[in-house]
């Protein structure tokens, strides 16, 4: 622990030693110090030390006030009471009565520490137990604490001077030598305690700082590595499950997501580079060819029309890519709502059934309502449409396409199965990549984005896309979390509001 604490100090020392060699010798250490003070570990430690120190000081002051201060106040109260009594005597009986009272009090020695001295206008003592008027007592009506000669021995007196009408001066005091000794003992004790607290506070601050540093070191190392471009780094977990672990987990989740997005961006830019160039080149070539070789307006017109068609294709690929990107970012959850998949699927069957019939095919719907899910209706429609379009594209006539759905535990599965040529096993993992097109699909129109979009939609819905061999053909399975509490949620909503009313 100590070695960690000491780290910044030796690191700074060589700088200071090297400083004269530097072109700007006074500047460097200064910059360093600012940085050092910016360390929040240090700030926390200093704050801790400050709070600790302030509370220790407050405690010491209170203790002092409650003990040593109390002694002082007692003495002063006694003196004030004396003065009150004596001044009353003086008013009643004049100087003679006062002198008598003082002598009485001294003779009775009610308080052996009591000190009285009555002097005339020239400060000549009239009566009292001090032989001379102490020279330091000059101002009227004030407190003094000074050593005096009291009879035979030295004393420390705390005194108050009163000026009486008629030019007389009265000094009332107490010998506080023993009390002063006690007070200085107390003061010394408190000062030592304070010193101890400062030391303890500093040690505590240092401990806090090093704990803080150690907990953050991993996070900052990881962040630095990421900043250098190494996205594979992750923050290590201490396994204690504390706040720092939770922070580390959050940071790791964030990094995972960033890495996924970066991968997506990389994949898309690669895809654009490879797969959009082809149709763009084709459109461009067609236009250039027409500009150079068209024999008449009809040729030109036809070429422009074909190029427009090509451009429309490119635009639709772009829109597909953007749509997938939009879905993957997850910003589309705003359109989520409770819906019944059965209605969605039977509409789909109705829409595509007509197309299937044209091709001598049939779409069989095997599902039973209700199939409640929580999702984006448009996106789910598009996902199912993409699967149906694939099935229609690759099915030979006579083999029905199955559109089925059902509940499986807490999931709802949608199955689109065809009896077509199927996907070769080696391609199964890759068909959901953007622009991937299997050998058998090369000759058919399409952009190679259909399954990528289905995959993205499923991820947005916390579901999955599974492609299986239907022997022959493909069996695409969409698995979505079912909405169990659909009805409960609807009923529950007003129940939540009632108590508030």
């Amino acid at each position, binding site marked *: 622990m100590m070695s960690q604490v000491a780290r910044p100090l030796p690191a700074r020392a060589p700088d200071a030693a090297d400083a004269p060699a530097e072109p700007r010798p006074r500047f460097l250490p200064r910059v360093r110090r600012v940085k050092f003070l910016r360390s929040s570990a240090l700030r926390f430690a200093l704050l801790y030390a400050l709070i600790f120190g302030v509370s220790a000081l407050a405690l010491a002051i209170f203790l002092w006030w409650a003990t040593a201060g109390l002694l002082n106040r007692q003495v002063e109260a006694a003196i004030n009471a004396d003065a009150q009594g004596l001044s009353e005597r003086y008013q009643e009986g004049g100087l003679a009565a006062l002198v008598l009272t003082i002598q009485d009090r001294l003779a009775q020695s009610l308080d052996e520490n009591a000190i009285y001295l009555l002097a005339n206008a020239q400060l000549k003592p009239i009566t009292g137990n001090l032989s001379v008027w102490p020279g330091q007592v000059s101002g009227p009506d004030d407190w003094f604490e000074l050593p005096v000669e009291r009879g035979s021995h030295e004393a420390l007196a705390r005194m108050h001077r009163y000026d009486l009408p008629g030019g007389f001066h009265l000094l009332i005091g107490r010998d506080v030598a023993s009390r002063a000794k006690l007070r200085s003992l107390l003061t010394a004790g408190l000062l030592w305690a304070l010193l101890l607290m400062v030391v303890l506070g500093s040690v505590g601050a240092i401990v806090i700082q090093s704990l803080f540093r150690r907990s953050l070191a991993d996070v900052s190392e990881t962040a630095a590595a990421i900043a250098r471009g190494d996205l594979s780094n992750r923050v290590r977990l201490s396994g204690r499950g504390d706040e720092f672990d939770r922070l580390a987990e959050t940071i790791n989740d964030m990094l995972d997501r960033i890495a996924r997005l970066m991968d997506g961006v990389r994949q898309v830019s690669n895809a654009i580079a490879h797969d959009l160039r082809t149709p763009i080149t084709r459109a461009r070539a067609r236009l250039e060819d027409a500009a150079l070789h068209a024999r008449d307006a009809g040729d030109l017109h036809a070429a422009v029309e074909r190029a427009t068609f090509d451009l*429309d294709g490119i635009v*639709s690929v772009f*829109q597909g890519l*953007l749509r997938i990107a939009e879905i993957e970012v997850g910003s589309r959850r*705003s359109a989520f709502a409770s819906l019944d998949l059965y209605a969605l699927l039977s509409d789909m069957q109705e*829409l*595509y059934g007509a*197309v299937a019939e044209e091709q001598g095919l049939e779409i069989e719907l095997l599902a039973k309502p209700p199939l409640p899910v929580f999702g984006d209706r448009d996106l789910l429609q598009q996902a199912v449409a993409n699967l149906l379009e694939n099935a*229609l594209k690759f099915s030979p006539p006579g083999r029905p396409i199955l559109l089925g759905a059902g509940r499986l535990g807490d999931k709802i599965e949608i199955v689109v199965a065809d009896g077509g040529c199927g996907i070769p096993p080696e391609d199964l993992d890759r068909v959901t990549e953007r622009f991937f097109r299997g050998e058998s699909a090369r000759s058919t129109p*399409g952009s190679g984005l259909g399954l990528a979009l289905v995959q993205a939609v499923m991820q947005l819905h916390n579901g999955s896309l599974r492609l299986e061999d239907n022997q022959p053909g493909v069996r695409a399975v969409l698995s979505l979390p079912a909405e169990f509490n659909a009805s409960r949620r609807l009923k529950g909503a007003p129940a939540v509001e009632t108590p508030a009313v």
Partner: protein
Amino acid sequence: MRILLVEDDRDVAGFVVKGLREAGHVVEHAANGRDGLFMAASESFDAIILDRMLPGGIDGLRLLETLRAQENTTPVLFLSALGQVDDRVKGLKAGGDDYLTKPFVFAELLARVEALTRRGKADSVVTRLAVGDLEMDLLSRSVRRAGQKIDLQPREYRLLEYLMRHAGQVVTRTMLLEGVWDYHFDPQTNVIDVHVSRLRQKVDKPFPRPLLHTVRNAGYIMRPDNEA
């Protein structure tokens, strides 16, 4: 029809203005939001085509919000390069009646603008639609042509209703997909064509004169033959 186009790109604006004029409309053009707002507020139009991103401090959304705040109910179609679903929702929430993403096919724009101006009139209660000798009774949901009853599936009925409500007007495939099926995506296959051709089998095939015509590169139009 008197149409205001607010669009800052000169090429796109020129293309749209030319196309709309060829289709027989009167078109005014504003190249920035300030002018657009001034014209929209001070003159009367049947429809406004509005770009979202405009120079001059006032973008399309603000222009429309200002206009709607003045209780101006001119139908507005957004024509924007901002094509994400959220953008679309924002545009419609601000008071837009339709939203078309750039790049666009002119026929689609024309069809949608013309459909916009119809929308207001269609709100009045109609119980019967007729195109040529084809009649649709919206109350009994029955269709007759030349006095002969035609049996339609529910979806075919809705398709025909949509076409008849927009009679004399080009209806694109996307409009049909949105209006009849409520689908908002581009199918790769010719689903709409298949459904329209099925409808044709029942509505046009047995009769000497077709009412439902295909418009090349655009969509379909329903109209009595003699008007062609």
